[in-house]
């Protein structure tokens, strides 16, 4: 990689930050230049973020229709999936999946709700019960 192949301008998603890229200078020696994020890395990062957004939106619609619990929406919104949430809460995966059922979730004790809230970094556990319309 040559220095001119690396965009020095920070990409929007990097919010002004730049990373370090190892490039071969004109003298054939390696140097480090600021990397603002080239097309490939920006594209895949945006897509990875967008995937969670799509999953959250789909879960939101299903939650409004009563087909899943609001927990699923919040899970994807916090960029988690069932295995991640299970590991972060200490619940078994099958338990987390149970919590995605509206009937089970409605009766979920406060303590278990708190474990989900802590894992997701949400201050108020009751927020997990709500879904934006």
């Amino acid at each position, binding site marked *: 990689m040559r220095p001119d192949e690396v965009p020095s301008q920070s990409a929007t998603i990097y919010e002004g930050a730049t990373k370090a890229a190892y490039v071969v200078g004109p003298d054939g020696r390696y140097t480090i230049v600021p990397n603002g994020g080239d097309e490939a890395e920006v594209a895949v990062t945006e897509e990875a973020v967008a995937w969670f957004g799509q999953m959250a939106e789909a879960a939101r619609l299903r939650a409004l229709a009563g087909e899943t619990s609001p927990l699923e929406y919040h899970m994807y919104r916090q960029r988690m999936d069932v295995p991640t949430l299970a590991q972060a809460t200490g619940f078994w995966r099958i338990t987390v999946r149970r919590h995605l059922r509206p009937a089970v979730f409605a009766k979920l004790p406060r303590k278990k709700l708190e474990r989900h809230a802590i*894992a997701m970094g949400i201050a108020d556990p009751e927020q997990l019960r709500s879904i934006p319309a």
Partner: protein
Amino acid sequence: MNTTIATSSAAPAASTFQHLQSAHCESGVITSLLRHEGLPITEAMVFGLTSALSFCYFPFVKINQLPLISYRMTPRYILNGIRRLLRVPLRYETFRAPADGTRRLDELLARGRPVGLQGSVYFLPYFPVNMRFHFNAHNLIAYGRDSATGEYLISDPVFNTPTRSAPDAFERARFVRGALAPRGLIYHIDGAIPDKDIAQVVPLLRAAIRKNAFMMLWMPIPCVGTPGIRLLASRVRRLPAQKQPDFCRRFAGHIVRMQEEVGTGGAGFRFLYAAFLQEAAVLLNKPALHELSLELTAIGDEWRVFATHAARQNKGRAPLDPPALAATLATLSAKERLFFKKLWKAV
């Protein structure tokens, strides 16, 4: 390097600690800590010396439904390597209770010690929102605490400038549960390092390079090294027959993310290792290593071309074509195989 800072036990590190940007978090943190102690080592040297270059494809470990793909060794491999090879008194501490972890961190910072620590990318407040994912094994340095606001002064090697974090968010990031949970891990160089001369690495280089070549070529499991790349290629080739197009797109993007986005210095650490080979060529006085460095750079450039194609397919800017990506991966596997065989013979 300023050698007076080596005995900075009384002086606050905040005034003397130098932020250093690196490609990779773990090698960057230990490089900064060693430089702070007066050993003028580079990130590339740390990375190469610990034989940290790799390729792993673990289809049975899933992250958001996608397999684990990594271009380097496991977390803490570099730290452990440096501790063993350079006999650095690097001390790890983990904590059960967050309060204990915070107290110990504050104590070390008050003594003026820069402290390496592990945290979750998702909960570090200074990370750009779109770069936050649930990856718990990120490494960074805390080098002081603002007495007025209580904020931690942070040198995150992936970023170009030093930054700060509020204490509650910081504790949150250090004590997340889940895969690779940090358990408040802190590490610091506890005592004098035995040798502050960079020449000490010279007798270690041959074994380090050979070890890395060995791991890339002859590990007895097919998921690791160049056979791992081939295995991934065959997986990608079979993708369209087995999965939905949407999943194929995500798979392509995932490979690129692991290769480019997560602080690798480009081409999944290949450029970083090539930089190491250049340094090794000078230290060992072996011009052949310099040639090999350029060869690895060329391989790295092909990884970059692969990334561009895969990313376009991921984003829908180009038609989805997994067999073409698989063919490129297979070529790369063959080229790296040849390369590491040459490297094995060269030292």
